[in-house]
Every structure is written in C-alpha cells, then in structure tokens.
C-alpha cells in the first residue's frame, strides 16, 4: 500500500509546479459556470411549466449546471495518450514489469490529480459560486450521500478511462477512440444536458448505462431530485457498475499482460 500512496503524493507534488496554468484553468471553468447558468436560466424562463414537468426548479437546474462544470474538474484525466506514447517507445513493458499492479498504479496517479484538483480548482470555484450565486446545498444524509456519490463517480470515470486506455495497447493510435469516449460520456452522463431532459425513450435507456453515475446521480443528489430510499438505490447502482467495470478491467488487463509476455518472448 505504501508505494501506491507514495506515488499519489509524488503526482500531487509534480502537478503543483504549474501555478499559472491552475489560475487559467480556474478562470476557464468559471467562464463555463457563468455560461451554463445563464443558458439554463434562459431556457427555464422560456419553458412552459418546466419546473412542474421535470420536477426541478430553475434554481435547481442552475445549480446542477454550475456544479457539473466544477465536477468536471475532478474527473480523472484520460490515460490513452500516455499509454499510446509508451507503447510507441516500448517503455510500456517496463511499467508492466514493475512490482506493482498496473491498474493500482494508474489509480494512485489519478488520486494524486484528484487531490490536486480538489485543492486548487474545486474549492476556489465552490467558494466563488457560493459568493456570487447563492445556491441551496444539501445537509445531513443527503450531503453524505452526495459525497459518497462523487467518489463513486470518480471511480466509474477512472474505470471507463482505464478500459479505453487499455485499448491503446492494442491499437497504438487512440485519438479516435478517445474522442468517441468523451463525446459519449459527455452526452450520456448528463454532463451537458440532464437525463430528464431527453425524450422519455432515450432517457430510459441512458438510465441503465454506467455513464449516468458520473454526473446525473451525484448532481441529482445535490439538488435534491433524488431523496429517500432512492438515494440508496442510486448509490447501489453506481457501486454495481463500478464492480462490473472493475471485473471487466481486470479481465482485459490479465489478457493484455499475457499477450505482452507472448509477443515479448
């Protein structure tokens, strides 16, 4: 365990080098926060009985939109490009031979970036949002469920990234697959438009996919769209998908390691 924690800390230290970059990232997502909020405010102002038909008030939707931008900042970065670079120069073999679990290694690194984004991006942004746009925030069980849900969302996003990243070992060139992944995740997770805005038939399908666990569930918990026993169902939904994807990633990893040994001779 110690070596993984050490790797997390090292990543955290490395990422702290780029201070100016952080400032620009914060400005960047604050622009997005404002843009999203204004867009949804206008949409609600133009919609007839939208609060009634969707069960979410204009204020709730604005909160959802602003938080989706902030949540975006803590999602783990894609690893496809890094892996495909390593496949190209052959150093992937050394990574895999090291006495650590390859998936844990990547997870520790993602955890380092998570801590970093938390301190340097999420907290300043939340403070700014609370100061400029007063929003209702959850308390008690609802707040605890939200926190747990965010962690599960992070895990889900990491597992999807890891599985897509693994395909980089097979195909070397990953740009296209990576692009498809981000478009599908952005649309199906509710990051751009909440799921209850989609036509019914579409949203019924999307509700079964793992992607909604990344944005739709945690943000719905925050604004109080999910309450009571539904909280536990939704958390269980996220956890179940985490488990499925974890198993899938282990199978793929084992298969690739075997394949590498064979081709490596």
């Amino acid at each position, binding site marked *: 365990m110690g070596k993984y924690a050490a790797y997390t800390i090292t990543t955290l230290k490395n990422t702290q080098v780029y201070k100016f970059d952080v400032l620009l990232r914060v400005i*960047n997502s604050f*622009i997005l926060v404002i843009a999203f909020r*204004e*867009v949804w405010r206008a949409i609600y102002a133009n919609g007839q009985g939208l609060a009634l038909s969707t069960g979410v008030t204009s204020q709730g939707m604005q909160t959802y939109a602003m938080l989706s931008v902030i949540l975006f900042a803590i999602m783990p970065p894609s690893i496809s490009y890094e892996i495909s670079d390593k496949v190209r120069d052959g150093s992937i073999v050394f990574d895999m031979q090291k006495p650590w679990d390859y998936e844990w290694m990547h997870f520790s690194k993602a955890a380092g970036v998570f801590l970093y984004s938390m301190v340097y991006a999420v907290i300043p942004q939340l403070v700014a949002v609370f100061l400029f746009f007063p929003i209702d925030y959850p308390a008690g069980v609802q707040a605890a469920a939200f926190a747990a849900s965010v962690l599960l969302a992070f895990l889900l996003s990491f597992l999807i990234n890891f599985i897509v990243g693994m395909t980089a070992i097979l195909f070397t060139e990953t740009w*296209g697959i990576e*692009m498809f992944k981000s478009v599908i995740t952005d649309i199906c997770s509710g990051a*751009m*438009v909440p799921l209850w*805005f989609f036509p019914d038939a579409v949203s019924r399908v999307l509700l079964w996919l793992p992607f909604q666990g990344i944005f739709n569930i945690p943000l719905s918990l925050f604004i109080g769209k999910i309450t009571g026993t539904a909280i536990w169902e939704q958390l269980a939904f996220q956890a179940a998908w985490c488990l499925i994807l974890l198993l899938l990633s282990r199978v793929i990893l084992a298969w690739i390691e075997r394949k590498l040994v064979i081709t490596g001779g």
Partner: protein
Amino acid sequence: MIGRHIKLYLAMQSANLRSHMAYPLNFAIGVLSITFLGLSFILVSWVITQKVPIINGWSTYELIFMTSLRRTTHGIFIAFFVQSWFLDSLIRNGEFDRFLVRPLNPMFSFAAHNIQIYGFGDMLAGIIGLAVSMAHIPDWTFGKIVYLLVIVFSGAAIEWSLQMLIGCMVFWTLQGGAMRNILDQLLAQFTRYPLSIYNGALQVLLTFVLPVAFISYYPSSFLLGNRSDSTFSPLLMYLTPLVALLLVSVTYFVWTKGLNAYKGAGT
C-alpha cells in the same frame, strides 16, 4: 504574382494532405470522430428544444442553424489555420525561423504550413446541420445563400484573427499558449445560443471586446428574417464581413509588429 501564390499554396497544402493520408484508417477514424463530436453539439440543441421549443424567440431549427454555422466556420479554421494555435511552441522550438528565411511573405508561408484533416469533420457536421435546418426554414433565396458563404468565410476569419492575436503575444512574452483555452471556451460556448440570453456585461464583451457574437449570432439574426433582439443597434446584424475585414487588418498589423520585435530579440 497572385496566381503564383495560389499555385504554390495548393501545391504545399496537397503535399500536407498527402502526408496526413499516409495512414488511411487513422484519417477515417479522426474525421469520423470529429464529425460525431460536431453532431453532438447539434444534438444537444435538439434535445433541449424538444422540451422548450422556443428560446428567446429562436426555434429548434434556428438554434441548430446558429450552432451549425459556428461548426462550419470552426472547421475551416481548424483545417487551414490551426497552426496559429501552435505559434508559441513553434517559436520555442526554433522551428518558426524557417518561415522567415523563405523567399515568401512569412504570413503566407506560415498559413500554408499545415492542413489539419480533422477540420473536415467539423465542416461536415456543420454542413449537415446547416442543410437540415435550412430545409426547415422557409424563404431561402439565391442571394441569401451567397451571403451565407460570405458569412462562413468571415466567421472563419474572425476566429483566425482572435486566435492569432492571442498567439502573437508570444513575440513579446515568449508564452501565451495558455490563454488559448479561455478563448476556445468562449468561442465554443457563446456561439450556440442567442446573445440576448446573456447578461449585459457578457453582451458587451462578446460584441465589442472579443466579437465572438459576429460569428453566428448576428449573421443568423439577419439571415433568419431580420430579427433584432440584441440590446445594441440592429445595424450590427449586417456587420460580420466588415468586422472580419477589420480584425484581419489589425491582426496583420500586429503580426508585422510582432515579427519585428521577434527579429530584434533574436539578434
């Protein structure tokens, strides 16, 4: 003289294109995935208008038209001018000097340096969106379609100018690439909905400081039936080509100044 430049430009770009097509599968996947990305923006507009059919007086297909207009102009920018994104890294690596030693205008040489095939994916998505929305919007005349072409190229010119102006900061500061993300974000977010939904400060910013609104909002206002729901003079609807011309002139001026500063720093 101009004929020679056109010939030279075509020759350089076709060489670039051939080098990109060396891996046909990557080429196909790349263009396809960008088309997919572009269409996803259009899809989002569609989904929202299924619940809210009219946003500040703009209907589904009018909003799709506006989003698609920006995708098309962005595609042209990416395909032919994306190198302005990399001005700072070209200078830091010392690769920029080759544009200066060629017996050509450095701007021309720089503009012909690269062609980015992914831009064609954006153009494709944009053109699909434009075609679908235009089929649902009445009153298209030949004149309007010709003007639409002018608008598309003006929009690409506006994006190019803004990107280059930020890129040119590198001549004085040797950095500036980081500001790019903010500009990209402004361009991507604020070209999708009518300007009138934003607050006053944003409207001033997007019209007079970084004239992003001239790419899709103002020309759409004009093309989709002379509506004027902006807070400013209705005259702004017609000004996109002029704004483009003005910005390109300013950019060329700043670029020339920048080159002088750069040469001064280099020797």
